[in-house]
């Protein structure tokens, strides 16, 4: 019988500090066993339980795209016990992984549509997965617009890739920071305001992921612009433990974020009490 509580092994291949205070670190991991790699079929938006034996496990959205073969990428903010231990890992260390868990962004349904991706802070991980996936399958999708906000320029993650995307003509990137800073020549202002100014076409599909407060104020902007509740998607987070709908922690209404989500349409969320 398949035992989803048992982690498989992955090896740390690369570590990148994403910001000067080193609170955000991206880890590239490779599969130790070939059969684990073959069994691991995922799509952008799904998550894993990353575990260090003896310290426990924590859920993280997968930042790599399934088009990037042989590796998984996670960006981890050092904030609690497990994430602190993860930050101490070195290249070559072996860790445990369970997944892929949860559902994904509607990459099939979005085929042929324009897409607007709205993100904030370091919750940009599964959005990176999505963007890399869309660019790899570029011909299947219409216009792609990305709005990404961070408090300060240092707090953007995947800075090198942002530079690359900014040069592309088949992706429109709007980067914004909270307050003006010397040397910053891109946008200033909170994500909801920038979204209002960018005024994305309400026939595009919207994918929103960021801190709860950003999601809370961005969704009404999209609704005002005329977006239907069924084409606005967001990804939620809770303190998930089992990841398979049994331990009860991530319940919101009659749904569990770990198995019914983490990706929900606004139409679905409106039926759930206190989703935010």
């Amino acid at each position, binding site marked *: 019988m398949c035992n989803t509580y048992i982690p498989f092994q992955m090896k740390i291949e690369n570590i990148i500090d994403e910001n000067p205070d080193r609170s955000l670190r991206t880890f590239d991991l490779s599969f130790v066993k070939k059969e684990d790699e073959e069994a691991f079929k995922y799509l952008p938006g799904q998550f894993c339980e990353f575990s260090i034996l003896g*310290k*426990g496990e924590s859920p993280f959205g997968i930042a790599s795209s399934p088009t990037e073969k042989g590796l998984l990428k996670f960006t981890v903010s050092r904030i609690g016990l497990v994430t602190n231990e993860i930050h101490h890992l070195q290249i070559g260390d072996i860790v445990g992984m369970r997944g892929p868990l949860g559902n994904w962004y509607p990459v099939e349904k979005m085929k042929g549509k324009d897409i607007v991706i709205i993100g904030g802070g370091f919750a940009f991980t599964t959005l990176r997965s999505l963007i890399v996936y869309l660019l790899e399958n570029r011909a299947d999708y219409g216009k792609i617009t990305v709005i990404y906000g961070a408090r300060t320029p240092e707090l953007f993650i995947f800075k090198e890739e942002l530079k690359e995307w900014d040069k592309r003509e088949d992706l429109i990137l709007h980067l914004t920071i909270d307050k003006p800073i010397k040397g910053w020549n891109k946008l200033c202002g909170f994500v909801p305001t920038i979204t209002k100014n960018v005024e994305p076409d309400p026939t595009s599909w919207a994918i929103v992921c960021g801190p709860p407060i950003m999601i809370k104020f961005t969704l009404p902007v999209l609704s005002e612009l005329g977006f239907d509740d069924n084409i606005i998607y967001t990804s939620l987070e809770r303190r998930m433990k089992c990841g398979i709908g049994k331990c009860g922690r991530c319940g919101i209404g*009659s749904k569990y974020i770990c198995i019914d989500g983490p990706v929900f349409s606004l139409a679905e969320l409106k039926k759930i009490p206190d989703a935010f």
Partner: protein
Amino acid sequence: MIEIKKKQFGDFIKNLMETYRVFAPTKDGKKSSFSEIKKADEIVDVHTTKSAKSVFFPQAEVLFNYSENEIEVPNLEQKPIALWGIHSCDTKGLLSLDKVFKNAHQLPNNKMYEDPYWNKKYAESLIFTLACNEPLTTCFCNWFESGPFDKTGADIFVVDNGESFLLEAISDKGQTFFIQSGFDQEGEHQHAVFSLKKKAESMMEEKQDISSVFETLNEIQEKEFWEEITQKCINCGACTFVCPTCHCFDVSDEGKHQKGKRIRVWDSCMFGIFTEEASGHNPRGLSYQRVQQRIMHKFNYFYDNYEEHLCSGCGRCIRVCPTNLDIREIVKKIIKRKNNV
């Protein structure tokens, strides 16, 4: 229906132990719970303090042992379990938990995440539901289309008539057990069982019509309602631990980095830390929100997924509550609110 005289009961249990690990209600000081027995005289006939869920979902359970990066899963290939002396309310509780652990509802990725620790034990078990001859004043199984002599979920239904146990095979597994044990279904005991059943049912308080509860809970939006009806609760969590249907758990590692075990332990939605995130954000930071979650899970959320309530009316939460908060009163207030609208 076959009859086992009480003086033959020791031999019956002894025979059962050849094929099964036998669990039954036993004493633990002045309390009682279900545990594995070695002989029949350990069994007590009481309303157990703790429910039977621990037989299949122990309060603490090892998911795996680890040493360096090697993982070893505990042996799940054990002798099957025979569970003797479980009342109908607990048998129904197991049916609800089986839905959770088997994950009967459809997932978006068409996956079914089974729980191997629960599944094998429960699927192979032989459940002897014992008719409840003397319901307590806190019992309310009759609210849930059930009653003290409900056979739902039983493999074998047992009635204690004082001198003997009368056994009736209910499920296919029960029938097979009868055939293998050489039992004949013959026997005229229907009349005695009927009068015991009537007597037990007459001891219960009047049943409530709870058919409006799910819908009414969909409509209640204001927090004042929840603050009001949950104000006695101190979030001690006792109700969740004795409950036959509560299934929340925590997963944690014990031991040093090189060697130890990953365990799961019963947890409770009554505790603030249950949903507190590393960032400090807590979706259910207030006491009333956690009681609201418990009531909503039992009488609305679970019903939304499985069309049944996550409560079997065993009444343990009422008996154990240090502030005398009575879940029946909460449900009655929900029903009353419906009638007032």
